[in-house]
């Protein structure tokens, strides 16, 4: 872990020099396009300036002096993202950011703003590289695809949103969506087949370069008594692995993933909105759009990023610039809701099932012990849908009918149960709402 500092700086410089130079080149191309093709001299000039800035950074990096974030900023980021209370700020912060992006989408989809944000993100990544911990995470062969996927995802989300915003603007003016204007048919041969051929060649080249440039992340021989620390799932399952921290294996490994699958299958049958077919739109399908983005961006992608950047040895939280210390001590004592209720509120001891109890007595004891949790859960899954139907989802309930509404509402509640439990775990160390280890039923 503790690489010699000089060696490390050489390594980072060797990476950052070409990295900044590439960024400079990208901006130079952008400047050329802006000036000559789009006839926007002012924007072109700014782009030239940015390009020049990256050239200077590159020169510093080549000479072994890559600029980076100051230690104080890195420390602040570490504390903010993973402080004592887990990733509360990270989770709530990403949620708030996504909401903010949603409401200010008209501003963010402008190409100039998006280009600026991309440059800023890449610059931030470059500046973060001088932290050995961050560099280790990003340059690990396992994580390279994750980092590139994050950028790709950002690009495609931007692309879709910008098209949707454009279409919504047109809809306001009573114009048909852009996709309907360009309704001409394209021939399979040669148009499609040639496109596919080009894609095939590009993908082959990328895979070849990747295979040659990055070593396969092979590890030591598998051994029963030696588990890699941390043991991370493949990147696409990091969300599942994170979920397993908060729910029982049968719940997080079986029930919730199945619900995700069945929920996705159920979408066409739940959906009653006939608009937005065959073109991008947000305004015409606000609810569907928001739900999907919460499920995908919030509950899948941010968990992948969390698993990649913030989880370290012993599955503890580590800041992105924090060294992975196997012996990091965190107070993670988890307490069940029944413990809170019986010990802290009632000041009594928690009733326990003993081996000399009869079956009926045991059931009564368990019900008595977990009563509060059971009631809370019933309220959440059975009491909440009618309340929502008469308030927030009133119009939807009328249009969907009872069964479709209940299916939708329960899927929604299961979806929100995960971040709720995560935040409860981090803030009040809540382990289980219902805890019945006698029959392996915990929730």
């Amino acid at each position, binding site marked *: 872990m503790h690489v010699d500092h000089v060696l490390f700086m050489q390594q980072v410089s060797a990476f950052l020099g070409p990295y900044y130079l590439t960024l400079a080149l990208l901006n130079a191309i952008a400047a050329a396009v802006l000036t000559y093709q789009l006839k926007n001299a002012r924007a072109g000039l700014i782009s030239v300036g940015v390009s020049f800035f990256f050239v200077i950074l590159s020169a510093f990096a080549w000479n072994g002096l890559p600029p980076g974030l100051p230690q104080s900023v890195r420390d602040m980021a570490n504390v903010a993202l993973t402080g004592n209370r887990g990733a509360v700020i990270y989770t709530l912060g990403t949620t708030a950011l996504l909401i903010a992006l949603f409401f200010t989408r008209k501003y963010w989809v402008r190409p100039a703003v998006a280009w600026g944000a991309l440059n800023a993100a890449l610059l931030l990544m470059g500046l973060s590289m001088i932290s050995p911990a961050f560099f280790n995470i990003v340059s690990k062969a396992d994580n390279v695809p994750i980092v590139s996927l994050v950028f790709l995802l950002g690009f495609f989300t931007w692309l879709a949103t910008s098209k949707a915003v454009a279409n919504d603007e047109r809809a306001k003016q009573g114009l048909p969506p852009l996709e309907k204007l360009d309704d001409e048919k394209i021939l399979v041969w040669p148009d499609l087949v040639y496109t596919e051929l080009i894609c095939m060649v590009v993908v082959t080249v990328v895979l070849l370069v990747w295979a040659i440039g990055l070593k396969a992340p092979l590890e030591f021989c598998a051994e029963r008594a030696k*588990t890699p620390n941390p043991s991370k799932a493949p990147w696409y399952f990091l969300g599942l*692995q994170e979920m*397993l921290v908060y729910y029982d294996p049968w719940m997080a490994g079986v029930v919730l993933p199945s619900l995700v699958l069945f929920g996705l299958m159920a979408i066409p049958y739940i959906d009653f909105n006939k608009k937005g077919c065959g073109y991008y739109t947000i305004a015409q399908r606000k609810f569907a759009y928001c739900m999907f983005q919460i499920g995908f961006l919030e509950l899948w992608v941010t968990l992948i990023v969390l698993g990649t950047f913030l989880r370290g040895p012993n*599955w503890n939280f580590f800041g992105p610039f924090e060294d992975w210390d196997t012996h990091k001590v965190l107070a993670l004592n988890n307490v069940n809701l029944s413990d809170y209720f019986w010990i802290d509120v009632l000041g009594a001891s928690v009733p326990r099932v003993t081996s000399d109890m009869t079956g009926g007595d045991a059931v009564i004891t368990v019900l008595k012990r977990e009563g509060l949790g059971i009631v809370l859960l019933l309220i959440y899954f059975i009491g909440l849908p009618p309340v929502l139907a008469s308030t927030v989802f009133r119009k939807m309930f009328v249009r969907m009918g009872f069964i479709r509404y209940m299916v939708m509402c329960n899927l929604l509640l299961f979806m929100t149960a995960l971040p709720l439990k995560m935040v409860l775990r981090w803030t009040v160390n809540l382990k289980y709402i219902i805890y019945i280890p006698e029959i*392996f039923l915990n929730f």
Partner: protein
Amino acid sequence: MAEKKKLSVAEILAAARKADSGGNEGGGAPSEKAAPPAEESSPAAAPAQSASAPSEPPAPATAAKSPPPKSIEKPAAKPAAAPGDRPSVKDMLAMARAGKSAAPTVKPAAEAAAEESAAEKAKPAPKPAPKSAPGVQAAKAAKSESPAEAAAPRSTASILEAVRAGKRLGPISKSELAPAPAAVEAEVVKPAKMKPAAGPMPAKPDYAKKTSPAVKDEAIESRRTAVGFLGFAVGSFLAAGFSAMTATFGLWTLGFARFMFPNILTEPPNRFKVGFPADIPPGTVNEKFKTQSGVWLVNAEYNGKPQIIALSAICTHLGCTPNWLEAEQKFKCPCHGSGFYKEGINFEGPAPRPLERFAIRLADDGQLEVDKSRTFQEEKGEWSNPDCFVPV
């Protein structure tokens, strides 16, 4: 044959012409005369039949029934067919219009049909038949056989016009056309079907009434016995096959079951000695047997009583192997962060229950002996069982 295909202009023309000429013939007496002898003689007499209907489409079918003639016919047919497998519209129109010029090429063949030896000569005409629509050839046959009585050839335009106007001078689709060959074969019955505009159907000749049912019955009878034999043969083969398969699978299952009881066990024994209690000082965790046996030997207090226990090194969450962290005095799982106290009680992370204990006892020689075949779970209250600890 049965599928409905759009007819080509050529086919429509040909069919229309056939309908025309048929109507004029009023049952086509000459063709009747020509056909019966062939049928009467014997259905198996392939050369005769193929010759009797020189322009008959089913020629290949009958030829197939009797392989020997086929082999003779083939070489002869090929060169003759060379000019064109499928007559073009032009050819057909020309032939139809010329009437006489088309007839001679076919007529000699029709006459030759009487003599069985003329099989080779007859072939040139039938050859194109299978490739082009059978009906076309049938029509041609009908026409060419009676060139004298044939109606004056109609112009293409008038025929097409009639067809398009829905007058249906001929069959419109191939499926309608399909029966045509059969009609020629058993010409007594079918032509009426083909020609709705034709006159009243002639009475069925006696020979046709008598012979065909008998032949049919015989055929069915023979087929029944054949099917019966076939069923028996296949059935027994099936039975034999399935029996063999069942036996094979049974043996496989037995062989697989045998794998459950290997001759040699390469894994360490479930019951093994781990040294003297003095080797495990109070408050320590012995990791010596973790790698080989997945066991930690712990000398710790449980419920205020110091004891030596054997803890299973399998996380109760999802089965990873936790690590013992000496500095923190806890077991910590690297997969999802479950933490356990020294005595095995879970206190952090997702693990729902404490680590399991194995049976441990003091052997006669004073050494500790662990038995991994028996486990004790705290949440079931089994840790009070004296078999799972050695008091110190």
